[in-house]
């Protein structure tokens, strides 16, 4: 049975049983990963999955299910269980419905690439080229992954929405090492494989790794920091989660009661764009079927809106930003608007500071206040009188995320596209200079 037929079968059965709102999604994914370390391929991985997701509201009782099994009999079992389950569920008095269609959708530019769809095991050639490039550029060891996927989604809702989308994704990461304590990581992604230059990423990683040999222990205190794109994306990713209306309600946001207020330096403008050309999370529609859009989240330092689905938007007396998440709205592609400075010009503005190329293990002490700490890893360098100096190690950033954003002093002019282990939302950002960042280290 085709996904569309199953979806329609489920929808009709649930509506007949009295459901008020129903969303049925079927997503199919074929993906692969080449995992490598010590310059060799550890594993080749292949996945084939089909997921059936059902959302049902009946008298404000919300039940969700996700089934990794796809057959008509399995589907009938699920429908029966849903109906039994919903009887004993409790109503969500705050629930306020799902998007009302029909909608017309615009396609996302550069979101499907036949070359990725037919890449197969040629992905190994990209990994080989990248490893060779890193070694030729001076790295001793490399580790990383190269992932490719083809996705198809179909969505059917009780509010006149019937939509499909397809996409391809490529993600590459490389960590170059010159010793146990000298390394650099670079990541990149694209929906079109020809726009992903894995050799360039490998070369950049190798060059920084080489420079970071023999680091000394860093010092604590306040430093001006030039954040490379990867670490700044880590911070913006955490801010993005705080933008969700769900996070505000759950106590996970430092942006509570901040709409219309200054939350960052006026140099900062952040956009969430679900339609971003070649955006990793771009799609025609969100999880309710609402057409995705471009939302200005922070305009010259002023926080403009939370991320909403239909239900959270009604609770906040506003319109959906098309960021469903059926329970929790979430960012799509976060963009930090570029500034005017080359990286060199950012360094030149620093008398005594640090250049940080990666962050790791970002954890909050209090999501409400935004107090957190995070650990710079890979190449960390002293900046002295505008010039990159000695590498250091063993430090931590212990800061408040809003203070950090208010202390942004200059923004680079060359955005990079970042996603990864610690950056779950794709972020497009240039390097950024932040003044007076609090650096701590283990006490002797």
């Amino acid at each position, binding site marked *: 049975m085709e996904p569309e037929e199953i979806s329609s079968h489920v929808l009709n059965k649930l509506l007949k049983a009295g459901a008020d709102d129903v969303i049925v999604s079927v997503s199919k994914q074929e993906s692969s990963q080449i995992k490598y370390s010590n310059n060799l391929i550890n594993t080749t991985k292949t996945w084939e999955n089909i997921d059936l997701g059902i959302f049902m509201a009946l008298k404000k009782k919300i039940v969700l299910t996700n089934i990794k099994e796809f057959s008509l009999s*399995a589907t009938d079992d699920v429908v029966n269980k849903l109906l039994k389950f919903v009887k004993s569920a409790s109503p969500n008095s705050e629930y306020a419905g799902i998007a009302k269609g029909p909608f017309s959708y615009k396609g996302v530019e550069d979101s499907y690439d036949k070359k990725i769809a037919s890449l197969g095991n040629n992905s190994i050639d990209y990994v080989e080229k990248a490893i060779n490039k890193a070694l030729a550029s001076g790295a001793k060891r490399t*580790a990383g992954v190269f992932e490719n996927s083809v996705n198809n989604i179909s969505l059917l809702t009780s509010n006149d929405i019937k939509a499909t989308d397809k996409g391809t994704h490529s993600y590459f990461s490389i960590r170059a090492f010159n010793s146990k304590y000298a390394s650099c990581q670079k990541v990149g992604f694209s929906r079109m494989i020809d726009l992903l230059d894995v050799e360039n990423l490998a070369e950049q990683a190798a060059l920084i790794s080489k420079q970071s040999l023999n680091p000394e222990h860093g010092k604590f205190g306040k430093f001006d920091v030039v954040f490379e794109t990867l670490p700044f994306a880590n911070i913006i990713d955490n801010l993005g989660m705080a933008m969700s209306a769900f996070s505000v309600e759950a106590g996970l946001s430092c942006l509570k009661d901040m709409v219309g207020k200054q939350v960052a330096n006026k140099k900062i403008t952040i956009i969430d764009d679900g339609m971003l050309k070649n955006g990793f999370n771009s799609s025609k529609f969100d999880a309710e079927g609402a057409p995705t859009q471009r939302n200005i989240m922070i305009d010259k330092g002023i926080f403009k809106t939370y991320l909403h689905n239909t239900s959270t938007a009604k609770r906040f007396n506003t319109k959906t930003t098309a960021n469903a998440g059926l329970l929790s709205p979430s960012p799509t592609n976060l963009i930090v608007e570029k500034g005017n400075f080359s990286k060199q010009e950012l360094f030149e503005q620093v008398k005594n500071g640090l250049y940080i190329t990666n962050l790791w*293990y970002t954890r909050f*002490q209090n999501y409400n206040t935004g107090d957190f700490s995070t650990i710079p890893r890979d190449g960390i360098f002293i900046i002295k009188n505008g010039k990159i100096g000695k590498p250091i190690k063993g430090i931590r950033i212990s800061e408040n995320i809003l203070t950090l954003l208010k202390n942004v002093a200059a923004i680079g002019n060359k955005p990079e596209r970042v996603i990864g282990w610690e950056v779950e939302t794709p972020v497009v950002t240039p390097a950024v200079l932040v003044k007076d960042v609090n650096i701590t280290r*283990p006490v002797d």
Partner: protein
Amino acid sequence: MFKDLADFAVKYALKKGADYSEARLESTTSNSFILKNGIAEASGFDKINGLGMRIIKNKTLGFASTNHMDKEKIKKLIQNTINTTEKASHLREEINLSEEKANKDRYRVKQKINLNDVGPEEKIKLLFNAEKELINTKINIPSRYLSLSDSITTEYLTNSDGTNILATVPKVTFFYLLTVEHDGKTSQRIWQYGQTGGFEFVKKWDIPSIVVNEVKALQNNLKFGIKPPKQALDIVAAPQVVGIMVHESGGHPYEADRIIGREGAQAGESFITKEMLGTRIGNEVVNVVDDPLLENSYGFYKYDNEGVKARRKYLIKEGIINEFLHNRETAYCMGIKSNGSSRSVNYDRESIVRMSNTFMLPGNHTEEELIKDVKLGIYMKNFMEWNIDDKRINQKYVGAESYLIKNGEIKEPVIKPVIEITTPQLYKSIDAVAKNMEYHAGNCGKGEPMQPIPVWFGGPSIRIRKIRLGN
């Protein structure tokens, strides 16, 4: 279950030229319930039926997974995987597996109260009861997020060495995030409880008492907390804090795949090398083990995901680096046998070296004795923020419920004392270990794609001598 399909897959891979093949079938049903600020946000259930395979051909490893339970599709997947391993063979890490006994067994974790016999209504009622008790405290708690979930997983593992394991493991989990406000200031705690077993454990936890005690302690700290002293002092760390310390710096660095660099890209490597086996890392009172066999623990298993029989591993023995965590691949690399530490979170993830239940062994003291011998110090009962670098040296723990110790007695609450310390200094500064034991549940992150895997971490209270708190 589709056991025949898994048996077929193993044989078919061999027929297509594989030197080793392994299939792992997973069938999981789960339920979850969320209460947010007193409102039933949503309930849900999920179902998984899928097959994961590892195939080695010409010393090249390929992993494949699918939830299309169809023979023809599986045949095609196996052929594709073999083709890919062939293409990768000129650039592959040479994969060899340690020789292990082929085990045949079936086991089931017993449930006194079967999860399927407890309806959704009763499960969500427990959260409503907790909410009611929170409101009754009259404490200002602007955000209250409570969730309860349960699952039953049946796994069938078979490989071309003759291993055949069928296991059924039920799990229960309670998670909370609470925000307490006082005088314009807020304090938060996130914590979770988790065990393998039936609903009897959810009842035993007494969820209303857990959350009420938590908000009372948070309010007490906000109301009466003082700043921590600046001079060098002693710390008595309670089991929750010891558990996370041991997990982060006594467990992760002992994962052999980190040590050989296989997780170098993301999860990181380790400051420990093979050559450090047998060398001193801490005071002789320090003993750290990883033990999957703890009954009803969150990280329980009898056989790992390569079919190797689980056992207790002594990672640190009397302060000496004693043993690493191994799967068959890392064991072969180091010329030994696997100690059964290979785990994967679902059928669609490659099994890699993981912790199970990692904890410090108890000593002979009471917690009171540890406190009594402190002139100036901090009693850190639990924590909120923590992190550690990817080689597992530089770690930080920020106390949530904490108190000043003065002349051997617990005094007023202390606001956010910070332990920021290196691993060698931490383990060398532990001078006494108590005999009170607690285990706590968490989901440990590792792997690419990420595999958050259920573990326990724990230990007794310990005393850490003469350290200076961080800023």
